[in-house]
C-alpha cells in the first residue's frame, strides 16, 4: 500500500525546514527575575512601610507571575507553564524549610544561654528559682529509651526474620505485615493509654513507672524496627543464603551468621532512627511515667523525669519562676533536638558505611 496516498499531509508542498531553534529567554532569566522581584518588592516595602513578611510575599508573587509571563511572551505557553511549575515547586521546598530554619534558630537562640556544666549534671531537687538542671530528665530519657530498645529490637528483628525467612508470603506473614504497617500509625497517646491500662490492671490505680513508659514506647518502636529490618533482609541476595545452605549450614545459623551480619548496617540504621523517633515522645510518658524533680534510675520504682515531659511541664507549670522554667525548657529542647538530630545523622552515616555491598 502506498502511504503517500493516504496522507494528506504528505501532499503539502515543500515541507518547511525543521524548526529547531525556539526563541528562548536567557539562562540567567530566573535569577534575574528573582532579583528584580525582590528589588521591586523591597522598594515598595520601603516606600509604603510594609513588614518583612509582606515584602517577601510580594516578591514571591511578582516572581511567580513575572517569570512565566516573560517566558510566555517569548517562549510560548508551554515553556511558560513549565517555568511556572518549576518556580512553584521550588517555592514549596523553600516554604517547607521555613519552619525548620525558624525552629532550629529559636531553639538554639533561646536554649544556648542556660546550657552549662551545672545544667547537664544537676537535677531539680530542692530548686525553686534559677539553677538546677536536667540531669535527672536526661538519665530518665536514656534509661527508658534504652529499655524500650531492649524490648523492641529483639522482638522487631525476630519478627522481621519470621516475615522474610520463614513466613514468606503465607497468610500469617501477610497479616502480620499488614498489622505492622497499621501499627506504625498508632497515635502515641494511645500507646500510652495502653501501657497505663495494662499497668493499672496489674498494680492498681495511680501507678507511674518507668517501665510502663518503655512498654508504651516499644509499641511505637517495634513496627519501625520490623519495617527497617524487613527491608534490609529483603536486600540480602538469595545467593548468599544458598551459598551457606550448600555448605551444609542449618537455616538458623545461616540467618544468624550470614544474613544478619550482611544486613547489619541497615538494621542498625533503622534501629537508630527508631530510637530517635521515640526519644522525643512525650504523650505516653506523661501518662504512664509522670515526672519528678529528683534523679530516679530505677524504672521499676515510681516516677521518672524525661526530657520531653520536663520540657512540657516546665512551660506549663508557670508561677513565680516562669521565666526560669521557660529558659530551662528551651535549654532542654536544645539538648533533645541535638540528641535526636545527631541520632538521625548518625543513622545515615551508619547506613552509608554499611550499605549493602553489591558487586565488587
Amino acid at each position: 500500500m502506498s502511504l503517500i496516498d493516504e496522507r494528506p499531509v504528505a501532499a503539502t508542498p515543500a515541507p518547511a525546514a525543521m524548526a529547531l531553534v525556539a526563541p528562548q529567554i536567557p539562562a540567567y532569566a530566573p535569577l534575574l527575575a528573582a532579583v528584580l522581584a525582590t528589588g521591586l518588592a523591597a522598594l515598595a516595602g520601603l516606600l509604603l512601610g510594609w513588614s518583612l513578611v509582606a515584602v517577601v510575599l510580594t516578591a514571591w508573587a511578582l516572581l511567580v507571575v513575572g517569570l512565566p509571563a516573560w517566558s510566555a511572551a517569548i517562549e510560548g505557553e508551554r515553556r511558560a507553564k513549565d517555568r511556572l511549575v518549576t518556580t512553584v515547586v521550588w517555592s514549596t521546598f523553600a516554604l517547607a524549610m521555613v519552619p525548620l530554619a525558624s525552629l532550629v534558630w529559636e531553639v538554639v537562640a533561646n536554649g544556648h544561654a542556660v546550657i552549662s556544666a551545672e545544667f547537664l549534671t544537676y537535677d531539680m531537687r530542692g530548686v525553686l528559682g534559677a539553677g538546677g538542671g536536667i540531669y535527672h530528665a536526661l538519665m530518665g530519657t536514656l534509661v527508658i529509651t534504652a529499655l524500650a530498645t531492649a524490648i523492641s529490637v529483639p522482638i522487631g528483628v525476630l519478627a522481621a526474620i519470621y516475615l522474610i525467612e520463614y513466613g514468606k508470603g503465607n497468610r500469617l506473614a501477610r497479616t502480620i505485615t499488614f498489622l505492622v504497617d497499621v501499627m506504625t500509625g498508632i497515635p502515641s497517646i494511645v500507646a500510652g493509654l495502653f501501657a497505663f491500662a495494662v499497668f493499672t490492671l496489674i498494680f492498681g490505680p495511680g501507678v507511674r513507672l518507668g517501665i510502663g513508659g518503655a512498654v508504651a514506647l516499644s509499641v511505637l518502636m517495634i513496627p519501625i524496627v520490623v519495617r527497617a529490618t524487613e527491608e534490609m533482609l529483603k536486600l540480602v541476595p538469595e545467593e548468599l543464603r544458598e551459598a551457606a545452605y550448600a555448605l551444609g549450614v542449618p537455616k538458623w545459623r545461616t540467618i544468624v551468621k550470614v544474613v544478619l551480619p550482611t544486613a547489619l548496617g541497615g538494621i542498625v540504621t533503622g534501629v537508630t532512627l527508631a530510637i530517635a523517633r521515640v526519644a522525643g515522645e512525650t504523650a505516653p510518658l506523661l501518662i504512664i511515667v509522670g515526672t519528678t524533680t529528683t534523679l530516679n534510675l530505677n524504672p521499676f520504682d515510681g516516677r521518672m523525669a524525661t526530657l520531653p515531659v520536663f520540657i512540657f511541664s516546665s512551660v506549663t507549670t508557670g508561677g513565680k519562676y516562669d521565666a526560669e522554667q521557660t529558659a530551662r525548657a528551651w535549654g532542654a529542647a536544645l539538648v533533645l533536638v541535638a540528641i535526636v538530630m545527631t541520632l538521625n545523622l548518625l543513622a545515615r552515616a551508619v547506613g552509608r558505611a554499611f550499605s549493602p555491598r553489591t558487586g565488587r
Partner: protein
Amino acid sequence: MSTTTTARSAPTAVSRRGDAVFAGLATGAGLLIMLALAGVAIFLIIEGVPAISASGEQAYGKDNIVLYVWPLLFGTLLAAVIALLIATPLAIGVALVISHYAPRRVARPLGYLIDLLAAVPSVVYGLWGRAVLAPAILPAYAWLADHLGWLPFFDGPARTGRTILTAAIVLAVMALPIITAICREVFLQTPRIHEEAALALGATRWEMIRMTVFPYARSGVISAVMLGLGRALGETMAVAMVLSASGIITIDLISAENPSTIAANIALNFGNASGTKINVLIFSGLVLFVVSFAVNFLGRWIAARGQVKA
C-alpha cells in the same frame, strides 16, 4: 588432596533442634506483635467501657459520653483535615524537587533536610508553636478576619494566635515529611521508559511529570496522604501546647474559641483525672484508636491495591 580422612558420617537424620527453636522464636515474635495490637484494643476496651454509663460530673459536665467525645472528634478531624490541605500540595512539591527537579548531587542532602523535620520531637514543635508561631501569626489572622471575614472560616474575631488553624499548621509541618517521603519513593519508581517516552515526544519536564509520573503515582500519593492523616490525627503534644481549646464545635478557624482534639485533651486532663474520668479519657482514646486504625488501614489498602496495578 588424596588424604584419607576418618570415616565420614553418612548423611543421617540429626535432630534440628536449633532450627526448631529459632523458627519458634521468630514466629513467636511475629505472633507477639499481633497480640500487642490486639492487646492495645482489648485493654482500651476494658478500661474504656466503664465510661459508657458516665454522665454529669464524671463526664466532665456532659450528659453522656457521646456528647463529650463528639466535639473532640470533630476538632481532631478538623485539625487533621486542614493540616492535610496545607501539607499535601507542599509535600508533593517537595517530593518533586527531590525526585525530579534538584540535581542528583543535591537531591540527597535536600531529602535529609526534610527528614530532619520529621526528627524534631513533637514537644519541641509545641514549644515553638506556642512561643514563636502563635504570636507571629496573629497579625495574619487579624488580616484574614478583616478581609475574608465573610467566609465562615475566618469569622474571627482574631484575638489570639493559639487557634485551631495554628495547630493545623504545626500538624502540617509534622505530617509533611511523612507524605514527602512516600511521594518521593513513588515518584522515583515511575518507570524510566515511560518518562523517556514522554520526553521523546517532545514533552517539557512538567508535561512529562503530568503524563507519566502523576498517573503512575496516584495511589501512592493517596496512601501517603492517608498516612499523613494518621499522623495528624494522633499527634498530641504539639496540639496540646499550641491550642487554646474550649471544647466547642465551630468551623471558625481563627477565633479564640476552638474545638479541642482527642489526643491533646487526654494529655492535658489525664494528670488531674481520677475515678471514672480516667475511663472517660481512655474511652476517647479508644475512639481515636479506631479512627486512626481505620485511616491507616485504608491507606495501606490503597497502597497495596496500587502495587498490584502498577
